[in-house]
Structure formats: structure tokens, C-alpha cells
């Protein structure tokens, strides 16, 4: 009963989306506002329908309805309740429901906004959002149905279908397979929803962009309207990436956080184009330039959002043959191709309307530096995209399978990231329109000299000699000093012109221009992350050794002693082997670690959970690789020393805080919007 209800709710939501698309287009063509309002209501209705459907599925997960194929594949009786809920996104079918659910929520929020000044956008925003939503719902309904049930045919064959095949009887397995052990980690509880929230958020600016193109609005209104959406999308995407990195660090047991895996890269690419877009739209807002380029960027971001979902869901990553056999792969391919072609055709048809009001007036200006920033971001995207698709191209044309791994990405993108850091040090000091070299030199002189002092300290005290690491640290130092100097100069300038103490002046500055100073906080977060990345990439040490109880291994500033190892079976069908390790620094015990390996009987899969001792200086990261029979009491450990890696996680927190500051709603703007004049939903006849 409940599976049928959930399915019918999903099907109704799909039909409502189709109705909304049709009603909206009809409303514009027939110039009848009631149809457009009805389409908006359809967009609003999609959310409760999909919510009820998703809740049905969650209830089925919670109550062990193993006759439902999806429930059987991702849960088991022994799983705790919270994992049963999060197993909604533990498989493809449930992920599609989650995607649709989040999309409909964002669509509803967009529908509920005040449309007074931008009514002509509404019908087209509804169409674009509902087309995207209908596409994902159609995948869940027709290609990977989360409510399919098991049936036993009269010939004894087991089938999975929504409705009973002729002569078949329901089949109810006694227990499920359980969630993939790798997904039973707190990081994985939040990582997929955050990433999906980021993905769906970017659909809103894209839909406004398309609406602007269709309605021939060549001003920057669509950008101003979606600025906060973009920032929110960017925030969630950043959170998703960071949580994914942390999950990888905590669960995958290889001592790192970013392996340049195609799935990671797929989620990273829309973040890169989104970041380029966030910088580029400022040029359009300030100077009325780059209208076409901003459209290209938002189309690209939307395409990459769909591509990221496509890449992980189509089977394309494993091989081109798996893609061909995948049921949803070709559908995704057609959808991405179709939306790209339509979007670009629309852009080309409006090309002349989108000519810039102004032109670049100086080689040394903020807009030129932002354009260089865009060039670097897009170059990284090209390298990432090419690295992901090349193995497929090679397989397709030569039959030869190749791996494009971290060395390629590090060599290709490393200099580009360094270039971005350098720009972060220069661009905040530049002015719109034109910056005199003399002025720029005067502003950067103090931070530059201080950064050289930092560099000298690194050379003298830390005795660093790797040129790449030195360059990375120096650039991070320069950006940090420039940013802090900007805060200092702004606050002291304000405290001179207003009778305010320095902290009050700083607070008022940030409160009045959140976007700018939130951006600076983000830059500081990036600096911390860069320090963590350079430290852990250039100076990571590792060793592996088999030691008996009481023996020690030395790595970096630490010695680790194997104290004991024990093995037991848990109620949730795991065989746990856990070692007790004492960590010494300078002869004193500073920590006790418990690296372990969990073997899941049902999934026949082993999880390696590291023992980590974290300090500001870095992480001692210890993995239990193997162990000898009880008699010898020996065990093999792999130990990593990851210097400065915690700067990465701290930087991520600062980064997120900065984004929150930049995206925080502005009450003054709400008031001004409320007093805006009423326009028509449909364009006036010309």
C-alpha cells in the first residue's frame, strides 16, 4: 500500500510539473496571467507532493519493508535508526528522490518570493525549473524506481516491479543487504545532501539567466536577483566538498583527503565555474560588461551540475560499455546535450542585445584582474574535465584503458592555483576602471615586504628548501597580509572619519558591505586551506612496519608503540579488530590511538578506520594494515605524518563563515524590494 502511495505521489508530482510547464508557456503565448499564476502554484505544489513521497520512502526504510527492492538494497534490521533514514541517499533510486525533493523545495522558495518588479521572469523561471525537476522525477519513475517491489513469478523467478506481473506473488526477504559500510560515517550523512543542495541551488540562477535571455532583459537584474541564490549554492557546494574530503580522510584509510578521483572532480567543476561566476558578475554589476560571458558561465555551471550527477549515476566512469548498458546514462546524455544546445542557441540569438555598455579601460584594473581570475578558473575546469573524460575517449578510439591520476592534475593545476593565490593578493588592492601602478605599488609594498620577512623566517628557521612549498607559503602569506591590511586600513580610515573605536568601525564596515568583507574572510579561509594543502602535500611522511607488542616505530617527531590488539564481533554483524597504540613525543606519552578494521559479514567488505592524533603541527594518522595470529602478537601498521593538515579544516570553517557573512540577507534591501512598483507577468504587446 505505502509503496504504491509513494509512487503515485511521485507520479502526480511529475504530472504537476508537466502541467506547470504547459500552463506557463500557454500563459505567455495567450497573454493570460491566470495561467502563469496557475503554473506558479503547480511549482509550489510539487514540494508537498515530493515531500510526502520521500517521507513514504523513509518510512519504508525505517520499518524494514524489504519487499521494496531499494529498501532491501540499502538497509538491514541491525542498522540503527539514523542510518536507515540517511540510507535514502545510499543508493541511486533514493538519491534521485532526494535530488527532486531538494529541487522542489528551492523551486517553492523561488516561487514564494515577491515578483513585483520581475514578473516577466516568472513564467520562464517556472518552465526551466520544472523541466529540470520533471527530468529527475522521470528518472525515478521510469528508469530507477525506488518503490519497486520483489515478486515471485509462477516459474519461481524473482522479479522487481512496481505492480505485480501476471501470476506473480509478493516476495518478502527476511532481511536486507544493509548500507554500504563506507557510507555509515557521519561525514556521509551530511555530504550528499550538502552537495545536492549546492547543485539544485545553481538551477535557480540558471533559470533566471534563461528567463532574462528569453525576455530580452539585457540589464543585470537577473544577476542582482540571484546573487544570494548563487552564494547559497556556492556555500552548500563548498560544504559538500569539504565534508566529502573529511569523509575520505576519516574512512577511506589512505592518509589523504583528495585523490583527484573522477567523482570528486565532477563535484569540484561546478564549484570552479560557480566561483568564476561569482567574481565575474561583479564586473557586470559595476561596469555593465561581460553580459555574454556571465551567461556562458551560468550555462556551464548548470551543465556541470547535471554532468556531476550524470557522471556518478550513469556507469560512465567504470567504462563506456557500462554506460551503454546503463538505463539512465543515455537519458542523462541527451538531457545535458539538449539543455546545452538550447541554452547556447538562445544566447547566440540574443548576442547583439548583450553587448557591453562599457569596455575595459585599463590593463591594470579590477575587472581585468577578475578576467584573469576567470581565465585561471576555467583553465582548471578544462584540465579537470579533460582528465575525467580522456580515459573514456582513449577507450572509445583505441580500446586502450588509461588512468589519468593525481600526477597529471597536480602538474596541470598547481601553477594555475598558484596564479589564483597571486591574484588574491593583488586584486583587492586594485580599483575599478583603472589602477595607477604607483598606487598599487604603494598599497602592496607593506604586505609584500612583510611576506618577504616571513619567507626569510621559513628559510632560516624551518630550513625549507623545496621551491614549490616556499612559493606556496609565500603566496599564502602575501594574501593573508594584503587581506588583513585591507581590514586594518578600512577600519582605521572609518574610525578617523567617524567617532568610532577601531573594533566598532570594523564591525560597521562589515555590516554595511557584507559582500566585500565576507569575500575577504573567504580569502583568509583560502589562505589557511592553502597552508594545509602545501604542508600536507609537500612534507607528508609515511612508513609501514610490522611490530610485536611492546615494540616501537618512529615517524617524524613521534614514536608509536604497539600495546595490544583485540578482536570481537558486534551486534550489527561486524568483526572488529582493534589495536591499542601509545604515541610518544619527546619521550612522553601524548596519546593513545585505536586504529581498527571492521569486517562487515553481509557486505563482505572491510572498513579501515584510522587512529588520528591531531595537533596544530599536523596529524599522526595510523592505519592497521594486518595482524599476525594471536601467538606472535605482531601487527602491521601504516603511519602517516601529515604536517599542517588541520589548517585545511580550520580554513574550511573560516571559508564557510565568510560565505555566510557575504550571503547574509540585508534588511535594507528587503524594505526597498517591498516598495517596488507592480509590473505585469506577461510582457506588453510591442
Amino acid at each position, binding site marked *: 500500500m505505502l509503496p504504491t502511495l509513494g509512487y503515485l505521489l511521485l507520479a502526480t508530482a511529475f504530472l504537476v510539473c508537466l502541467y506547470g510547464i504547459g500552463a506557463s508557456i500557454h500563459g505567455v503565448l495567450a497573454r493570460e496571467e491566470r495561467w502563469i499564476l496557475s503554473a506558479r502554484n503547480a511549482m509550489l505544489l510539487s514540494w508537498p507532493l515530493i515531500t510526502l513521497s520521500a517521507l513514504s520512502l523513509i518510512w519504508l526504510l525505517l520499518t524494514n519493508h524489504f519487499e521494496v527492492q531499494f529498501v532491501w538494497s540499502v538497509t538491514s534490521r541491525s542498522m540503527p535508526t539514523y542510518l536507515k533514514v540517511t540510507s535514502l541517499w545510499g543508493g541511486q533510486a533514493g538519491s534521485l528522490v532526494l535530488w527532486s525533493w531538494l529541487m522542489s523545495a528551492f523551486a517553492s522558495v523561488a516561487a514564494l518570493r515577491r515578483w513585483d518588479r520581475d514578473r516577466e521572469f516568472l513564467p520562464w523561471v517556472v518552465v526551466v525549473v520544472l523541466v529540470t525537476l520533471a527530468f529527475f522525477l522521470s528518472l525515478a519513475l521510469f528508469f530507477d524506481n525506488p518503490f519497486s517491489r520483489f515478486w515471485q513469478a509462477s516459474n519461481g523467478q524473482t522479479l522487481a516491479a512496481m505492480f505485480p506481473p501476471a501470476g506473480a506473488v509478493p516476495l518478502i526477504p527476511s532481511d536486507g543487504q544493509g548500507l554500504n559500510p563506507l557510507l555509515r560515517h557521519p561525514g556521509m550523512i551530511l555530504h550528499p545532501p550538502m552537495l545536492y543542495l549546492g547543485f539544485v541551488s545553481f538551477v535557480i540562477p540558471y533559470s533566471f539567466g534563461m528567463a532574462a535571455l528569453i525576455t530580452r532583459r539585457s540589464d543585470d537584474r537577473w544577476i542582482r536577483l540571484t546573487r544570494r541564490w548563487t552564494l547559497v549554492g556556492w556555500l552548500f557546494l563548498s560544504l559538500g566538498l569539504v565534508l566529502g574530503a573529511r569523509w575520505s580522510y576519516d574512512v577511506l*584509510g*589512505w*592518509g589523504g583527503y583528495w585523490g583527484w*578521483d*573522477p567523482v570528486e572532480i565532477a563535484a569540484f567543476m561546478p564549484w570552479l565555474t560557480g566561483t568564476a561566476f561569482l567574481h565575474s558578475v561583479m564586473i557586470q554589476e559595476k561596469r555593465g560588461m561581460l553580459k555574454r560571458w556571465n551567461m556562458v558561465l551560468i550555462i556551464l555551471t548548470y551543465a556541470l551540475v547535471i554532468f556531476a550527477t550524470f557522471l556518478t549515476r550513469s556507469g560512465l*566512469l567504470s567504462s563506456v560499455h557500462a554506460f551503454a548498458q546503463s538505463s539512465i546514462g543515455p537519458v542523462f546524455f541527451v538531457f545535458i546535450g539538449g539543455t546545452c544546445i538550447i541554452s547556447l542557441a538562445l544566447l547566440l540569438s540574443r548576442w547583439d542585445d548583450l553587448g557591453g555598455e562599457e569596455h*575595459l*579601460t*585599463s*590593463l591594470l584594473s579590477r575587472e581585468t584582474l577578475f*578576467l*584573469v581570475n576567470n*581565465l585561471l578558473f*576555467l*583553465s582548471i575546469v*578544462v*584540465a579537470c574535465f*579533460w582528465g575525467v573524460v*580522456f*580515459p573514456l*575517449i*582513449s577507450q572509445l*578510439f*583505441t580500446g*586502450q*584503458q*588509461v*588512468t*589519468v*591520476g*593525481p*600526477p*597529471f592534475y597536480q602538474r*596541470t593545476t598547481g601553477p*594555475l592555483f598558484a596564479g589564483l593565490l597571486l591574484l588574491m593578493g593583488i586584486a583587492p588592492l586594485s*580599483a575599478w576602471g*583603472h*589602477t*595607477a*601602478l*604607483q*598606487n598599487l605599488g*604603494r598599497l602592496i609594498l607593506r604586505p609584500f615586504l612583510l611576506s618577504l620577512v616571513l619567507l626569510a623566517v621559513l628559510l632560516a628557521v624551518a630550513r625549507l628548501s623545496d621551491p614549490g612549498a616556499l612559493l606556496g607559503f609565500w603566496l599564502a602569506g602575501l594574501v593573508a597580509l594584503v587581506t588583513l591590511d585591507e581590514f586594518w*586600513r578600512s577600519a*582605521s*580610515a*572609518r574610525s*578617523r*572619519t567617524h567617532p568610532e573605536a577601531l573594533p566598532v568601525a570594523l564591525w560597521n*564596515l562589515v555590516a*554595511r*558591505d557584507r*559582500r*566585500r568583507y565576507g569575500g575577504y574572510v573567504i580569502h583568509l579561509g583560502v589562505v589557511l586551506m592553502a597552508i594545509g594543502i602545501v604542508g600536507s602535500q609537500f612534507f607528508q611522511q*609515511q*612508513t609501514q*612496519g*610490522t611490530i610485536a607488542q611492546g615494540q616501537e616505530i618512529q615517524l617524524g617527531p613521534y614514536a608509536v608503540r604497539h600495546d595490544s590488539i583485540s578482536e570481537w564481533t558486534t551486534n550489527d554483524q561486524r568483526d572488529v579488530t582493534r589495536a591499542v597504540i601509545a604515541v610518544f613525543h619527546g619521550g612522553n606519552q601524548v596519546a593513545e590511538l585505536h586504529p581498527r578494521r571492521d569486517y562487515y559479514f553481509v557486505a563482505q567488505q*572491510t572498513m579501515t578506520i584510522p587512529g588520528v592524533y591531531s595537533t596544530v603541527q599536523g596529524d599522526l594518522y595510523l592505519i592497521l594494515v594486518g595482524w599476525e595470529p594471536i601467538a606472535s602478537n605482531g601487527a602491521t601498521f601504516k603511519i602517516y605524518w601529515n604536517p599542517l593538515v588541520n589548517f585545511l579544516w580550520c580554513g574550511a570553517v573560516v571559508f564557510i563563515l565568510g560565505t555566510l557573512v557575504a550571503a547574509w540577507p540585508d534588511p*535594507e534591501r528587503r524594505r526597498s524590494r517591498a516598495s517596488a512598483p507592480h509590473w505585469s507577468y506577461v510582457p506588453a504587446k510591442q
Partner: protein
Amino acid sequence: MFPQSSRAARQGPAIRRQLASLFWIGFLGGWAGLLLARGHAVAFQAPAPPPTPSADQVNAVARQLYCPVCANVPLDVCPTQACEQWRAIIREELGQGWTPQQIKDYFVQAYGERVLASPPAQGLNLLVYVLPPLAFVLGAYFLYRAVHPWRRGPGQAESTPPSPPEDEYARRLEEQLRKRS
């Protein structure tokens, strides 16, 4: 005394024979011992087999290879049984004195180029390395074209006079804040 002497005279050749026997036994024994010792010496002088490679040495090579079965997993961290066996092969080959390059060549021959972390720069694979820099150069060219008209246009001299350091900054800051609010 005589009888003793005569007895001694009679026993003399026997003693000599015994002494001679002892000599020869000692000589032959010493020679055999020398030979044995020499044999040992020869055995100790033979090239010693290379010591068993350490796990770190194995991992240093395995890190440069990718699991031939799992997608995108370096061989040094892959937890599967198959990869454990492949690491054992690396250990064995290092033990036989193979260089890391020879081991990599062996794996490429056995499992194809996909075991390498990056494809070798030859044939179609060249595209991997050529396209990203080419895209960057093209992008830089388009950017240059966008800026170029300004560079050749009139009046591009740095007309903005150097502003008084801090007062001008405060004025601009206030202006920006006014625009924001």
C-alpha cells in the same frame, strides 16, 4: 740400561712410524680443514642475495602504480586481496634486484597502460598533456584581445593622479559604502 736401550732400539722404527702417521694424519687433516675453511671462505665471498625489501620500499614503487582491477585506486593503498598479491610481486621483483622502472614495465606489459598513474606521452595520449595548456593559451589570447583595444586606444595614459594616501582612501571607502546602502 742396555736391555732398555735395545728395547728402545727395537721400538724406534715403530715410534717413527707412529709419528709419521700422526704427521700425515695431521697434514691431511689440516689440508682438509684448510680446504673446508677455504670452501667456507669461498661461500662467504660469493655475492650475498639482496636483503628482503622493506614495506616502505615496496610502497614507494606501488604508489606509482594503480590497481589493475579497482578504478582509480593507487596500488599502495588498495586493500583488496588481489592488490596484496601484486604488492608481493613487487617485493619479489625488488628482491631479485629489479629497478622500479623494470617493475612498472612489467606491470604495463601484464595489465596495460591503465596501471600507470599517468598515461605515457605518446600517440593519442599526447592530447592529455597538450590540450589543457593549449586551452590556457587560447584563453589568454582572447583575454589579450579583449584588453588590446584599450592598449592601442587614445588617452590610455595613467591619468589618475597618485592620490593622497589615507584621506582619499577614506573618501572612496565612504563612497562605496554609500553606494551599497
